[in-house]
C-alpha cells in the first residue's frame, strides 16, 4: 500500500478532521504578525513607480534630468536600464516590465525613481518628464472587437480564443422542448486586501534576495532572473505572511519584484517598494469583466440537452493570466451538470483599461452566474422546482463535464444539494416565503439556490506538482518548511496537522515556516484552491518518509519489529506491550547519534491531464470541488435595497482536515461574493478610475456580513491527495452571485442579468414593471 492509501484508511485520527483552534489566531487579533512593510529598516531605499497618465499613447521622450536633480534621488530607471528581458507577460509575451515605446492603460509603469527616502522618491516621480503622443483608445470589449477599433497590440485586440465542441448542439436544440437565451454581464472587481503590494529587494554579491507578501515564490524567482539576466540560483525569494491576496498577489508580486530587484542591483542597496492604495486600485489586476451570451435547451421532463455559449472576457491592456482564466471558464461553462451537447466559444479581448487577472474563482464566478441563472429560468419555464430540476441533471460518478471529462471519484454535488435542501427544509421555506410575500406590501423575500464546481489547481493540462520538507530537531520538535504561501487561509496549519498526525506528535511540536526558494524545491503557486491539497500531500510524503526513519530507530531502541511500533502523543511504544516505550525526543536524538537521515523532502505530482485544442475536450482537472449555496434575501421595494439575510452552504470537500479552516474560507468567500453581487464596481471615465478608494469602491463591512447558519460538509474522498482532502478556498464565492440573484428573482419575479445588482437597478426595474402592469 502506498502512503496515500494508508492515510485514507488510517483510523483513530487525533488531529485530522478535528476542529483545532488556529495557533496564529490570537496573534492576528492582537496585531502581532510582521508583514512586509514592518521589515522596512533604516538605510533601505524607496522606489516609486512613475505611471502613465494616458490610456493609449506613444512614448516620445523621457527626460530624467529634473528628477535626478532632486536631493536624495539616486537613480531613475527606464526600459533601457533593464539588463535582461523587459518582459513579464504570463501567458503571452505582451507585457513589458517598464513601458518601452507605448503605454496601454492609465497607471502603466514607465519609470522608477529610486531615492534615499519616500519624500525624495515622490518628488522625483513628479519631475520625471514623459512626452506622449496620445492615440485613440478603446474601453469597451465589444468596441474593441470591431475592425475599425484602435489596435492595442500588433497582433490585434483578441488575445486568445477557446472552444468546446461536444456532441451536436443543433441536434440537441431540436430535441429541446424549452429554450432560454440571455446575455449576462459582470463587472471589474478589486481584491481589496488590507495590505497593498509590498516588496523588499536585498542585493548581495551576484545575487539578490526578495522578501514579500506573495502567492508564487518560484514564479517571482523566474521573473526576477529573467529581467536581471540571472540564473535562478542567483535569486532567492522568501515569502512573508500576506495581509490578504485573493489572486491579486499571484499576478502582481511577480510583476513588481523585478522592479525592486532591478533598483537594488543598480544601486547596490536594499530597496523598499510599496503601492499606495490608489496605485492598487489603478494599476493592479482585477477580476475579468464578462459578457456571456448563453442559450440552453431542456426537454419537458427536465433533461438538459444542449448549451451554446459565447464568452467574452475583457483582459484590459495585457493578457496576463487571461488565457487561463478564459480556459477555466470555458471548461466549466455548463455548470456541474451533464449536458450531452455543448458548444462554447470564448474570446479574451484587449481594451485600454487596467489588466485583468487572477481573482478567487478565476473565471468561474462569471460563467456560473450565467449558467446558474439559466438553470432557474429553464426550471421556471418548465414549471419545475429549481432544486428538482438541478438534481435531474447533476454530475454523478461516470458522467461527463462540459469538456467531456468523465468524473470518477469525489463527485459529491448531488449529496451536497440533497442534504442542504433537506437540512434547511427548502420546500417548506419556499412556501413560507411565498405566503409572506402575498401579505407583504413593502418588503419581499426570496430564496435561491446555485451549484458550482471548480477544478482544483492548474488549467490546460499544465504540469502540476508541489514540494515540502521536514526536519526533526534533536529535541524532537519538527521544523516544517512549506511551499504554500500564508495568505491568511491557514493552508500551512492544515499541512502541520497532517505532519503531526503522521508523526504522532501534538500540533505544538511543529514549527511552521513559509516558503523560501533556497530551502525547498519548487512547490508551484498558492492558487487554484491547491494549497492544502497539493502542498498537504507533499507534506504527508515528507512526514511519511521521516516517520520511517523514526520507526526504524525506535525499533532498534525498543528491540522490536518495525511493524509493532506505534507513535501517539509523542510517545513511541510497542503495540503489543505499550509499557515498552520511549519519548519521541529520545528517538529524535538517537537519529542523529546513529546517523539516520533527520530530514526529508516530500513531493506531490498531479495525475496527467490533457486536452485536445481542436475540440476543447479532455481531462481538464485532476479533481473538482463541488459547492451549493442557498441564499435568502429581502428586497425593499421602496428603495431597491437587497438585504441578504442568510447564505446556507454545502460542499464536497473530500475530507475536512479542519472544519474550522473550511468554514472560515466559506465566510470570507461569501462576503466577497456578496460585494461582487451587490455593490462592488470599478467605474471609469476616459480610461481613468473614478473610485480609487474605499469611500466609493464599496466592499461589505463587518455590519454587512452575511450569516452562514448552515454548513454541510460532504466527504467523498479524493484518492489522489493526503487523507482524501480537496481545496475549498474559492468554492463558496462561485455560486454566491447566482444564488442571490435567483433569490431576488424568486422575490420579485425579475431576472437581473448584470452585476452588481445595485438598489438603483432594482428600484427602476420594479418601477418599470409596475408601469407595465398598470
Amino acid at each position, binding site marked *: 500500500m502506498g502512503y496515500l492509501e494508508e492515510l485514507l484508511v488510517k483510523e483513530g485520527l487525533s488531529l485530522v478532521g478535528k476542529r483545532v483552534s488556529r495557533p496564529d489566531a490570537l496573534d492576528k487579533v492582537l496585531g502581532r504578525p510582521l508583514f512586509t512593510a514592518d521589515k522596512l529598516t533604516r538605510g533601505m531605499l524607496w522606489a516609486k513607480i512613475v505611471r502613465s497618465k494616458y490610456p493609449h499613447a506613444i512614448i516620445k521622450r523621457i527626460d530624467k534630468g529634473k528628477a535626478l536633480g532632486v536631493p536624495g534621488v539616486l537613480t531613475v530607471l527606464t526600459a533601457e536600464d533593464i539588463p535582461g528581458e523587459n518582459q513579464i507577460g504570463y501567458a503571452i509575451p505582451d507585457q513589458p516590465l517598464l513601458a518601452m515605446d507605448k503605454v496601454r492603460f492609465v497607471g502603466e509603469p514607465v519609470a522608477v525613481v529610486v531615492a534615499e527616502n519616500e*519624500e525624495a522618491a*515622490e*518628488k522625483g516621480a*513628479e519631475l520625471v518628464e514623459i512626452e506622449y503622443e496620445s492615440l485613440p483608445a478603446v474601453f469597451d470589449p465589444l468596441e474593441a472587437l470591431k475592425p475599425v477599433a484602435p489596435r492595442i497590440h500588433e497582433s490585434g485586440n483578441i488575445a486568445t480564443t477557446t472552444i468546446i465542441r461536444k456532441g451536436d448542439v443543433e441536434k440537441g436544440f431540436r430535441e429541446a422542448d424549452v429554450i432560454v437565451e440571455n446575455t449576462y454581464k459582470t463587472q471589474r472587481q478589486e481584491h481589496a486586501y488590507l495590505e497593498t503590494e509590498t516588496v523588499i529587494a536585498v542585493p548581495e554579491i551576484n545575487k539578490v534576495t526578495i522578501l514579500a507578501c506573495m502567492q508564487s515564490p518560484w514564479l517571482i524567482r523566474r521573473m526576477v532572473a529573467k529581467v536581471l539576466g540571472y540564473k535562478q540560483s542567483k535569486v532567492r525569494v522568501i515569502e512573508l505572511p500576506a495581509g490578504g491576496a485573493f489572486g491579486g498577489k499571484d499576478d502582481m508580486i511577480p510583476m513588481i519584484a523585478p522592479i525592486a530587484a532591478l533598483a537594488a542591483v543598480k544601486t547596490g542597496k536594499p530597496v523598499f517598494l510599496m503601492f*499606495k492604495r*490608489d*496605485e492598487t486600485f489603478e494599476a493592479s489586476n482585477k477580476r475579468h469583466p464578462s459578457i456571456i451570451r448563453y442559450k440552453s435547451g431542456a426537454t419537458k421532463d427536465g433533461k438538459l440537452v444542449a448549451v451554446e455559449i459565447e464568452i467574452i472576457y475583457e483582459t484590459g491592456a495585457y493578457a496576463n493570466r487571461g488565457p487561463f482564466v478564459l480556459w477555466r471558464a470555458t471548461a466549466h461553462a455548463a455548470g456541474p451538470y451533464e449536458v450531452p451537447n455543448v458548444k462554447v466559444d470564448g474570446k479574451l479581448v484587449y481594451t485600454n483599461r487596467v489588466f485583468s487577472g487572477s481573482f478567487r474563482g478565476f473565471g468561474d464566478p462569471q460563467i456560473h452566474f450565467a449558467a446558474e441563472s439559466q438553470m432557474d429560468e429553464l426550471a421556471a419555464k418548465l414549471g419545475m422546482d429549481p432544486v428538482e430540476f438541478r438534481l435531474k441533471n447533476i454530475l454523478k460518478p461516470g458522467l461527463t463535464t462540459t469538456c467531456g471529462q468523465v468524473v470518477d471519484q469525489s463527485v459529491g454535488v448531488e449529496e451536497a444539494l440533497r442534504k442542504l435542501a433537506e437540512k434547511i427544509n427548502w420546500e417548506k421555506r419556499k412556501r413560507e416565503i411565498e405566503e409572506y410575500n402575498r401579505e407583504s406590501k413593502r418588503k419581499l423575500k426570496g430564496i435561491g439556490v446555485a451549484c458550482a464546481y471548480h477544478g482544483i489547481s492548474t488549467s490546460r493540462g499544465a504540469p502540476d506538482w508541489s514540494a515540502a520538507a521536514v526536519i526533526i530537531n534533536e529535541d524532537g520538535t519538527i521544523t516544517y518548511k512549506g511551499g504554500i504561501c500564508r495568505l491568511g487561509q491557514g493552508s500551512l496549519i492544515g499541512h502541520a496537522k497532517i505532519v503531526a498526525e503522521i508523526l504522532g506528535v501534538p500540533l505544538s511540536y511543529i514549527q511552521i515556516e513559509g516558503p523560501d526558494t533556497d530551502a525547498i524545491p519548487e512547490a508551484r503557486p498558492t492558487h487554484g484552491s491547491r494549497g492544502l491539497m497539493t502542498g498537504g500531500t507533499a507534506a504527508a510524503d515528507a512526514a511519511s518518509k521521516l516517520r520511517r526513519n523514526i520507526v526504524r530507530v525506535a525499533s532498534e531502541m525498543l528491540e522490536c519489529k518495525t511493524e509493532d511500533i506505534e507513535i501517539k502523543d509523542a510517545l513511541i511504544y510497542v503495540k503489543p506491550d505499550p509499557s515498552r516505550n520511549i519519548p519521541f525526543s529520545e528517538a529524535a536524538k538517537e537519529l542523529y547519534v546513529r546517523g539516520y537521515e533527520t530530514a526529508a523532502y516530500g513531493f506531490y505530482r498531479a495525475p496527467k491531464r490533457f486536452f485536445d485544442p481542436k475540440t476543447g475536450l479532455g481531462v481538464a482537472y485532476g479533481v473538482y470541488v463541488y459547492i451549493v449555496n442557498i441564499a435568502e434575501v429581502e428586497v425593499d421595494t*421602496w*428603495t431597491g*435595497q437587497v438585504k441578504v439575510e442568510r447564505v446556507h452552504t454545502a460542499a464536497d470537500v473530500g475530507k475536512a482536515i479542519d472544519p474550522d479552516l473550511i468554514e472560515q474560507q466559506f465566510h470570507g468567500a461569501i462576503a466577497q461574493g456578496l460585494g461582487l453581487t451587490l*455593490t462592488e464596481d470599478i*467605474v471609469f471615465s476616459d480610461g481613468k478610475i*473614478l*473610485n480609487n478608494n*474605499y*469611500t*466609493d469602491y*464599496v466592499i*461589505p*463591512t*463587518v*455590519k*454587512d456580513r452575511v450569516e452562514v447558519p448552515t454548513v454541510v460538509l460532504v466527504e467523498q474522498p479524493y484518492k489522489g491527495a493526503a487523507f482524501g482532502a480537496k481545496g475549498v478556498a474559492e468554492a463558496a464565492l462561485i455560486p454566491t452571485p447566482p444564488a442571490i440573484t435567483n433569490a431576488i428573482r424568486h422575490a420579485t419575479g425579475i431576472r437581473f442579468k448584470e452585476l452588481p445588482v445595485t*438598489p*438603483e437597478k432594482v*428600484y*427602476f426595474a420594479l*418601477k418599470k414593471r409596475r408601469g407595465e402592469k398598470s
Partner: protein
Amino acid sequence: MKLIPPYRYLRPKNLQEAVEQLGRYGEEAKILAGGTDLIPMIRDCLITPKTMIDISFLDELRYIREEGDMIKIGALATHSEILKSPLINGKTGVLAKAEKVLGATQIRNRGTIGGNLCNASPAADTAPPLMVLNAKLKAISVEGERIIPIEEFFTGPRKNALKPNEILVEVQVSPEPEKSGSSFIKLGRRRALTLSVVSTAALIVMDGVKCRDARIALGAVAPTPVRAKETEKLLINKELNGEVISSAAEKVVEEINPITDVRGSAEYRREMSKVLTKRCLLEALESVKR
C-alpha cells in the same frame, strides 16, 4: 500621490489663543478638530493649508448641556459623546438617530459635530436633523461673537458662512416640542461607513389630529443640505394620514437639485427623496408622543 507641502502646526492653549491665532493667519489657516475630514483632504492635496490650528485639545469646547430652554453642544463634542448623551436621546431624538448611522465607531469617536458642520458636505449627516431643530450656530472671532441660523450656514458644497477668522464654538437647539414626533433616515450603499446617497430628517408637531408644524430637511440632494419648505406647507394645518403624507412627499423633488455621481444617479436620488420623505414623515407621525 502628491507630496503634502510643509505647514505650520499650532496648538493653542485655550480658546482665546485659538481665536487670536486664527485672527493672525486667517485665510491661510485651517482649524483641525477630529481631522476625519481634513486629514484625508490634505492627503489627497485637495487643500494645502499653510497653517494648521489644532483645537482638538480644548476641552472647554467639549460639552453637552442644558441651559434654560436650550441644549448647547460644544463644537468639539464627538459623535460618540452626542450619541451616548441621555439629554440628546431624551430631547432631540432626531439628532441621536442620525449620529447612530454616521460613519462607524472609530469615526464617531474622533469626528466632531463642529467638524461635520464646518466641512459643509451636502451629505453631512448631522445637518438635516439640526435643520429641522432650527439650530443656531455660535461663532467667535477677534471681532466678537455672532449667532448664525443653520439655514444660512451652508453656502455651497464644502462652503460655509464662517469668515476666515471665525471659529464655530457651539451648536444650540431647542428640545423637540411637546406632542411632536421626529425621524431620520439615511440611504447609504452599505450598513456602516457609508456616505449618504440621500438622507432625510422630519419633525412634526401635532395638535390633536392636525399638524401644527412640519419641518423636513434633506441631505446629498443639492449643493447644500436643504429644508423643504414648500413640502412642509402641504402638511401644516392638515389632518395627517398616509395619503396626505404621500402626496406631500411628491412635492419634495421640486425643492432639490441632485447630481449624478458614482454614488447614485440624479434620477434615483429624486425618487428616493420622495420615498424617504414619506417614510420619514410616517415614522415621525408614529413617534408622536401624545
